[in-house]
């Protein structure tokens, strides 16, 4: 057979394309894993971005109070992966039929990625049978649900409250029990004019931070980005009201616009006593306040968020990480059992709080003596669960949809324009939603 260089290239090219096509088609199924392990040793692989969860699960796996009586003897092998990479790698591993972990921590804003094309259904165990008996006792299942089925369990309720500097509030004569945002904003405007200090912050950096800040207040006001069926509900009177409040706050100086609510900018604002209050979730105390201003320990307090005059809640939510169990693997049942014991029991929730200040997701636990007695040194020895209980009891539901990432990118710019006074709230929201609809419909 005569073979020249051109023929060789052709043959190799065709073979290569064939291999690629075959690979793509072969990748259309997820890997199975053999017979289920029903008892005995269960060395589980866990992927997470947060060292706190790594420590918690590693300790919990051998904690007799949590896993005593289980058919499995647990061990946990943790792999640390960035939040966005966890979902990407779960999918690529499944496509390539490579080993998957049994447990994976999904950051809340990454979950919409698996809401498309039955990815959640194909990758994760449907945990509805565990959550359904708990009914309304169990909070925050909505963001991790697809077609009414729960695919991941929230680790931290992420209850939003208002953190404030008790010493500066007293010094400036700001009451710590102001009832409404409207009143507080008026006081804040006066404080800003007199002292240059701000009683809140508004993110103006990346789209994620901008939209998160807006969403937190929108949920509190009683609005939402999506309804339970995944329909967009962001254009509403509540949204306009919230955005107008944010813009008015920035205009008067009551709210400080900051590019990064967690890094250098907020550290400077806190250190200079320029930011003396902020509405953020419980985890912000550790990652925002304690991390940036440990020297201000004892000067901060928490309270519920002032209501909007028009209605809404005294609590809200922002962020979170939920754990999902990967399906069709020998240790899937074992992983589900560990997750149930650690995430849906009172002991497990208390252990989680002590491991990383992760808030309970079982709402009645906020009233339990064990939680009510907890005091927080950073917050001046305050019995924090008195505040968190009130906020959790009135916490709005948060729904997501597959297009949440598109919405974030579509709304970020327009919201920023409204905050900066370059567009009205209504114009900005309409523009953002038009951009979203154009992309989602296409």
């Amino acid at each position: 057979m005569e073979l020249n260089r051109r023929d060789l290239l052709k043959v190799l090219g065709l073979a290569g394309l064939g291999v690629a096509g075959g690979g793509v088609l072969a990748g259309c199924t997820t890997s199975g894993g053999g017979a289920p392990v029903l008892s005995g040793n269960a060395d589980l692989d866990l992927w997470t971005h947060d060292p706190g969860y790594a420590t918690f699960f590693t300790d919990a796996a051998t904690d007799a109070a949590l896993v005593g009586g289980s058919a499995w003897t647990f061990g946990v092998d943790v792999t640390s992966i960035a939040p966005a990479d966890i979902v990407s790698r779960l999918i690529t591993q499944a496509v390539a039929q490579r080993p998957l972990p049994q447990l994976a921590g999904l950051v809340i804003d990454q979950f919409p990625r698996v809401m498309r094309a039955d990815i959640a259904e194909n990758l994760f165990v449907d945990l509805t049978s565990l959550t359904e008996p708990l009914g309304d006792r169990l909070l925050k299942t909505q963001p991790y649900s697809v077609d009414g089925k729960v695919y991941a369990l929230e680790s931290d309720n992420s209850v939003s409250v208002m953190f404030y500097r008790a010493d500066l509030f007293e010094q400036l004569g700001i009451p710590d029990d102001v009832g409404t945002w409207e009143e507080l904003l008026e006081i804040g405007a006066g404080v800003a004019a007199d002292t240059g200090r701000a009683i809140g912050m508004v993110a103006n950096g990346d789209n994620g931070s901008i939209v998160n800040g807006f969403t937190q207040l929108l949920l509190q006001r009683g609005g939402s980005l999506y309804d339970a069926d995944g329909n967009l509900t962001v254009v509403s009177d509540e949204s306009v009201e919230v955005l107008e409040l944010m813009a008015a706050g920035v205009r008067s100086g009551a709210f400080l616009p900051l590019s990064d609510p967690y890094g250098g900018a907020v550290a400077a604002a806190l250190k200079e006593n320029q930011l003396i209050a902020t509405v953020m979730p419980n985890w912000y105390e550790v990652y925002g306040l304690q991390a940036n201003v440990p020297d201000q320990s004892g000067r901060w307090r928490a309270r519920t968020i002032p209501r909007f005059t028009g209605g809404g809640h005294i609590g809200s939510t922002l962020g979170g990480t939920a754990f999902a169990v990967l399906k069709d693997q020998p240790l899937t049942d074992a992983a589900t059992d560990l997750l149930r014991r650690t995430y849906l029991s009172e002991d497990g929730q208390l252990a989680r709080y002590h491991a990383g200040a992760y808030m309970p997701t079982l709402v009645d636990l906020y009233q339990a003596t064990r939680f009510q007695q907890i005091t927080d040194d950073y917050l001046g020895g305050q019995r924090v669960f008195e505040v968190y209980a009130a906020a959790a009891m009135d916490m709005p539901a948060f729904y997501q949809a597959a297009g949440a990432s598109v919405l974030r990118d579509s709304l970020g710019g327009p919201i920023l324009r409204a905050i900066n006074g370059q567009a009205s709230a209504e114009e900005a929201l309409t523009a953002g939603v038009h951009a979203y609809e154009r992309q989602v419909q296409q």
Partner: protein
Amino acid sequence: MTATTAATKLRSDQRRWAPYAFISPFFVLFTVFLLVPVGAGIYLSLTDWAGLGEPDFIGLANYSRLLGDASFGAALGNTAFYTLFAIVVVLPVSLLIALGLDTRGLRLRDFFRLTYFMPVVLSPIIIALIFGLIFDGQYGLLNAVLEALFGFGGVSWLTDPMWARVVVVVLVLWRWTGYLTIFFLAGLQAIPRELHEAAELDGAGLVRRFFSVTLPQLRPVTAFIAVTMLVNTAQIFEEPFLLTQGGPGEATLSVSMFVYRAGFQRQELGYAAAAGVVMFVIVFVLGRIGTRAFGVGRTR
């Protein structure tokens, strides 16, 4: 067939196939790492695929969607701005610095080289953090300096669409100028001194020598740098991603970021592949234009 004939045929076959066996490693690698990904990418761009399950063949629908996607238009516009800036500003600045470093009798030459090259070896994460601190609107160093010197310092460097683009190109300038300077310096040092001396004897001044001796002699180096920079900047990702995440809004979004966003934030792998193919075509065409315009590969 006798044993002798068989052995002769075997040797003949070996002789015929041996050259192909020797050159095959290149072709195998070329196929596996270039043809296959390109083929798979083109195929994916014709499908709707979220990563799992069967890719749905949808023909050219992704390309048609790209045509009407304002975000993709914004990404193209931003990338064109970055690329233009790189060619029009970064390249000449690099050459000027190289000329400065090539000056006879310059002291601390190695120190300057090291300083200019430093940004290339620094981690992009650290660079983004430092730039974030410098350009922060409220507490940034630059605004503080402007306030102290000129009495104004309220520029929203990272949160105003126009200024955010400027900061990204400043980062490009800062990061890549030193790297390109090294190439220009190598080119300058390769120019025979006699040419400059002859021009000087003929009465050519500094400027005339630059345009009549230095620039023509540097043409191959300039061509290489220009085409490399053109192709690299057309695929810019790290700078806007780390500094502004493409924001505010989509003011600094680049085409590479658009591809990443579609693929890894929205699970629209087919759409991301289509954008990737378009980017590939644009970069290829730009590369060819650059190659032709600067005469890369042409014998002098």
